[in-house]
C-alpha cells in the first residue's frame, strides 16, 4: 500500500463499508459473538483470524445474511442490512466447502448468479469468459465440478463469487483444502485479483501466516470477542495482549513488577536476577506487568555482550532444529524458560551451542513489549 494515501482506518472522515455495532449472536444460551464493534473499509483485504470455534464463520454468515444478530446492528454502506435477505445483498460468499452446483458445468456455475441479476443475456457469456480467464480455468468451462481437481474447484468457487462484482466478497477458509505450496501461490493470486477488481475482501482463516501475507488489516478473535484489529506488522510488533502475541508467532511471556524512572522501565522478574530494562510505551506503568519478547529478538552468545543492558545467563535445555533456524530453549536459574532463535547460517555440524551449554541471552531496551497485567 503506497504511503502517500492515508490508510482509511486512520482517517476519521473515511466512511466504512461495513460497520458492526455492538453485535451479539447467541445460539440458545451459547454466545458465539459478543458485543463486537468493527469497521471495515472499501478495498480492504480484511482477515479474521482466530482458533477454531471462535465465531469467524458466524460473523461471515451474518454478513451474508444466513444468520441474524441477536442484538446490535450491521451496516453496509451506512444501511442496516438486517431486513435484507441474502439474495438481495450485494455481498457474495465463497464457501469453505466451495458449495459448487454438482449438476451444472463450470461455465453454468459461474453464470448462475449473473442469470439472476439484471445483466442482459448477451453480456453474461462475456462476463463468464472474463472470470474464467481471471482464475485461469478456461480449459475446464464445460466440465462438471466432479470432473476437475480440488484446486480447480476452488478457483471456480472464487470466480462464481466474483462474477457479480459484489461490493463485498466473503472468503471462508478458502485455501484450507490446498497443500502448502499451492496455498502460497493462491494467496498471491488472491491479492492480485483483489487489486485488479477493487473488491473488498473479508477472509476467514485460522492460519496466521496466511492472514499476515494477504491482509491489509487483521482482526484477532477469541471466544467471540475481538482482541485486536491492526495491520499485520502492528499485530506482530505491537500486540495489545499476551493472547494476541502468543497467537501470532512465538513469544516469551515473562511476568514481573515494574518501576519507572523517566522513560525507562525496570522489571523485577526473578530473585537474584538483574532487572529487565525496557522503554515506556505509555505513562504510568508501575505495578504488575507482563513482558513479551519474540524469540528472534533475543541474541544468544557464549560471552557476555557489553553493548546492551539486558543480559541474562542460562543453560540450553532443548534445541528445536527448523532447518533455516533453530530455537534454543534456555532455562534461567529461577526455572523460567526463554526461547531464543538464531538463523542457521552455517551447516549443522558447526552449530555453536549444544545441550547443557551455559549461554548468555541478551536484547536491547526496545526489543520487548510491556503490558499491564
Amino acid at each position: 500500500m503506497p504511503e502517500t494515501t492515508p490508510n482509511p482506518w486512520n482517517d476519521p472522515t473515511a466512511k466504512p463499508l461495513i460497520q458492526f455495532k455492538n453485535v451479539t449472536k447467541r445460539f440458545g444460551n451459547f454466545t458465539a459473538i459478543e458485543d463486537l464493534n468493527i469497521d471495515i473499509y472499501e478495498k480492504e483485504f480484511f482477515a479474521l483470524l482466530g482458533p477454531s470455534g471462535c465465531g469467524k464463520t458466524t460473523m461471515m454468515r451474518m454478513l451474508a445474511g444466513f444468520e441474524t444478530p441477536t442484538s446490535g446492528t450491521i451496516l453496509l454502506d451506512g444501511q442496516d442490512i438486517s431486513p435484507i435477505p441474502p439474495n438481495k445483498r450485494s455481498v457474495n460468499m465463497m464457501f469453505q466447502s466451495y458449495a459448487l452446483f454438482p449438476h451444472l458445468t463450470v461455465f453454468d456455475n459461474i453464470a448462475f448468479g449473473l442469470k439472476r441479476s439484471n445483466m442482459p443475456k448477451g453480456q453474461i457469456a462475456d462476463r463468464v469468459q472474463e472470470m474464467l480467464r481471471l482464475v485461469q480455468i478456461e480449459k475446464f468451462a464445460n466440465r462438471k465440478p466432479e470432473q476437475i481437481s480440488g484446486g480447480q474447484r476452488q478457483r471456480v468457487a472464487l470466480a462464481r463469487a466474483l462474477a457479480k462484482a459484489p461490493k463485498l466478497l466473503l472468503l471462508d477458509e478458502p485455501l484450507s483444502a490446498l497443500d502448502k505450496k499451492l496455498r502460497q501461490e493462491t494467496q498471491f493470486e488472491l491479492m492480485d485479483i483483489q487489486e485488479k477488481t477493487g473488491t473488498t475482501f473479508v477472509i476467514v482463516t485460522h492460519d496466521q501466516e496466511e492472514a499476515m501475507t494477504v491482509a491489509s488489516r487483521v482482526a484477532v478473535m477469541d471466544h467471540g470477542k475481538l482482541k485486536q484489529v491492526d495491520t499485520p506488522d502492528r499485530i506482530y510488533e505491537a500486540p495489545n495482549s499476551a493472547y494476541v502475541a502468543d497467537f501470532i508467532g512465538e513469544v516469551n511471556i515473562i511476568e514481573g513488577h515494574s518501576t519507572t524512572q523517566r522513560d525507562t522501565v525496570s522489571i523485577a522478574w526473578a530473585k537474584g536476577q538483574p532487572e529487565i530494562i525496557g522503554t515506556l510505551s505509555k505513562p504510568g506503568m508501575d505495578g504488575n506487568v507482563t513482558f513479551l519478547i519474540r524469540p528472534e529478538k533475543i541474541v544468544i552468545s557464549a560471552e557476555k555482550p557489553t553493548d546492551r543492558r539486558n543480559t541474562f545467563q542460562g543453560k540450553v535445555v532443548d534445541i528445536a532444529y527448523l532447518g533455516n533456524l533453530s530455537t534454543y530453549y534456555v532455562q534461567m536459574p529461577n526455572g523460567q524458560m526463554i526461547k531464543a532463535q538464531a538463523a542457521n547460517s552455517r551447516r549443522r555440524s558447526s552449530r555453536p551451542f549444544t545441550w547443557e551449554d551455559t549461554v548468555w541471552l541478551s536484547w536491547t531496551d526496545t526489543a520487548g513489549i510491556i503490558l499491564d497485567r
Partner: protein
Amino acid sequence: MRRFTWFNATSLTLGFAFLYIPMLIVIIYSFNESKLVTVWGGFSTKWYGELVQNEAFLDAALVTFKVGLVSSVIATILGTMAAYVLVRGGRFYGRTLFSGMIYAPLVMPEVITGLSLLLLFISIGLDRGIVTIILAHTTFSMCYVSVVVSSRLVSFDRSVEEAALDLGCTPFDAFRSVTLPIIAPAVISGWLLALTLSLDDLVIASFVAGPSATTLPIKVFSSVRLGVSPEINALSTILIGIVALGTVTASITTKRAVVRRRHEQQMAVQAG
C-alpha cells in the same frame, strides 16, 4: 473370485427355484390350449386374444393405471414437500408430532388404514370410485416417498442451497434450480415406489373402491375366487413381463451411471 462349490450351487438353485418356479408355471399355463388349468392341452395364444376382448379386465387395467399415475404424482409432490420441511425446516412447533404422523402409515396395518379411510369417505359423503382410490393411495404412498427423499436431503451439503441464495435466488428458485435437480434421483425412485405400491395394492383398494371403479388386483382376486382361469394366467404373464422390463431397464440405467461417474472421476484425476 469365489470358488465354485457344490454347496453354493445347490443353494443358488434352490433359492431361484423357490422364487421363480411359481411364476414359470403361470407363464407356461398362460399358453395352454385347454380351459382346464391343470391339464396341458398344447400351445396356444388364444387366452391373450380373449383377454384383449374382455372389457371388464380392460376397464380395471385402465382404472389401475390412472389411479397409479395420478396418486403417485400427487404423493411424490406432497412427500417431497414433507421431507423438505422435516429436514430443512429446523425446529418448529409440533415438528416431532408432524414427523411421527408422516411415518405412521408405514407401520399401520393396511386393514386399519383402509377401514379408517372408508369411514372418512362415508362420513364426508364422498361416493366410492376412482377418486376415493386415488386419495387413499396418495395417503399411504406419500410417506414412502418422504422417507426416500429425506434420506437424500440429509446427506447433501446445505451450503449448496445457501450458495444459490447468496447468488440471488429466492428460496423457491433455489429449491427449483438447485435442490430439486440434486435430489431428482431420489424423487424419481420415490415416485416409482409410489407407483408400484399403487399398482400392487389390494387391501386398501378393496375398502375404498366402489362399483363404478375396480382395480386390476381386485378384479384378479375376485375372479380367482371363482376358479383360476387361463385368462388370469395370461394377464399375470403380461404383468410379469412389464415388471421384468422395468427392473432390467432400471438396473441398466444405474449401471451406466456408475460407469460414467467412474470415467469422469478418472478424467478429473488426469486433469490433475
